[in-house]
């Protein structure tokens, strides 16, 4: 565990980040305000007026050995039109017909490993090796909200108009983040499927 600031610590080199995230989530400790998982780490923010590093570390150690059964996560289906501007480039890079790229992307059940970058932006994996095309050399200044992209073994949906370098293969009307309610469609640990739609 690394002390990342005077009010946070970072648990690194986790093999099963989501299991620890859920264990910590289920047994909150006094003064801990936020858990921020990434692919292999969790940043824990706390209020130093209420607790301190040593107490938080103790709590993490207890949760690590507690063996809480990992939650299977909800299954979320996201309808997608495979009409993205980079779909042909992805097919070329993968050496596959476009239909095959779509079939591979849509036939995989993804895990939402973590959210970051922007409210509601879920990093989903793992994209099948055959279509795991690296991000574009030059990022776009503005990617439209609802764009579905691939970057290596990760896929995701841009919840808002944002800059971005992912290969855009489709688009969705699903609301990934509702600013009015503060709700996100996907949470860490959820399972996600993309369902092709024709129109």
């Amino acid at each position, binding site marked *: 565990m*690394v*002390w*990342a*600031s*005077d*009010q*946070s610590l*970072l648990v*690194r080199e986790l093999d099963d980040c989501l299991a620890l*995230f859920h264990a910590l*989530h289920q047994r909150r400790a006094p003064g801990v*305000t*936020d*858990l*921020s*998982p*990434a*692919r*292999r*780490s*969790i*940043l824990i*923010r706390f209020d*130093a*007026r209420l607790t*301190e*590093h040593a107490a938080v570390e103790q709590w993490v150690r207890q949760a690590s050995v507690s063996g809480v059964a990992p939650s299977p996560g909800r299954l979320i289906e996201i309808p997608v039109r495979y009409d993205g501007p980079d779909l042909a480039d992805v097919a070329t890079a993968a050496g596959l017909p476009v239909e095959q790229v779509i079939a591979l992307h849509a036939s995989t059940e993804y895990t939402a490993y*973590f*959210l*970051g*970058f*922007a*409210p*509601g*932006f*879920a*990093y989903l994996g793992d994209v099948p090796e055959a279509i795991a095309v690296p991000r574009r050399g030059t990022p776009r200044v503005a990617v439209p909200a609802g764009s579905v992209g691939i970057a290596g073994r990760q896929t995701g949906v841009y919840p808002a108009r944002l800059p971005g370098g992912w290969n855009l293969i489709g688009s969705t009307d699903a609301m990934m*983040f509702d600013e009015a309610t*503060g709700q*996100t469609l996907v*949470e*860490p640990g959820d399972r996600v499927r993309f369902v092709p739609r024709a129109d």
Partner: protein
Amino acid sequence: MRIEVLSPGSLTTIRDLGQPGRTHLGISPGGAADSVALRLANRLVDNREDAPGLEMTLQGGRFRFGADAVIAVTGGEFDASVPLNTTVVVQGGFELRIAGTRTGVRCYLAVNGRLSGTVRRGEQLIMDSAATTAALRKATPYPYRKTLRVTPGADTDAFPDLAPLHQTEWTVSDHSNRQGIRLLGDLPIIGAPGGGVQPSEGVALGAIQVPPDGQPVILFVDSQTTGGYPVIANIASVDLPSVAQLRPRDRVRFEMISFAEARRLLLEQEAWIANAIR
């Protein structure tokens, strides 16, 4: 009671102390950039410390009060038509004018009651259950600093040399906002681990990231919740209000302190806040 927005200034918004507990959804806690200034303003008008107030940046604004009200303005040294850091009782029809700032970049207006609405020219802000009299008090002006205390950060041990961070006098870039404060220096920080890019991880408030160009960025209250640049150090929480008051072209230095010292200073600051109103 209503407050008419005659002129909203440049970046005026309603802010409270933020909403933690959602970084796992990619949502930053947000809240007032200078939380100490908002807390003091609220205390001066007998609000809860976490009540929403107006955060103004670089340019204040003009506001007309529809009825008598109890107000206070804190934070940077703005030119205002009321004394700063003081409880003020204004009468119905009073026009509050807040212009530019001599030092600092943000000020906070608190009004007794519960504030809601949108800060836009011609709109009315609504104050529920507003008092019209109050004990008149003053707040000791907060001692904002240009030498910022830092602790080690997530990747400090991976940097071959911390000297450029300490020895450089950094200049605050024009491209600074609530997401991040960009710093420019003559000696970029070289040798960032991983060539300056690594897998995304959760980032702490006040993390000092070093992108490949070696010019550091302080991640601030509206920053992304994850980041992929190595973190050389982290602003000590006690100096986050001072970060909030940095203006473009200000010059700053960093001073490394221990975690124990950072905690001691934070608790000392809490005691200072408790005693700052007289």
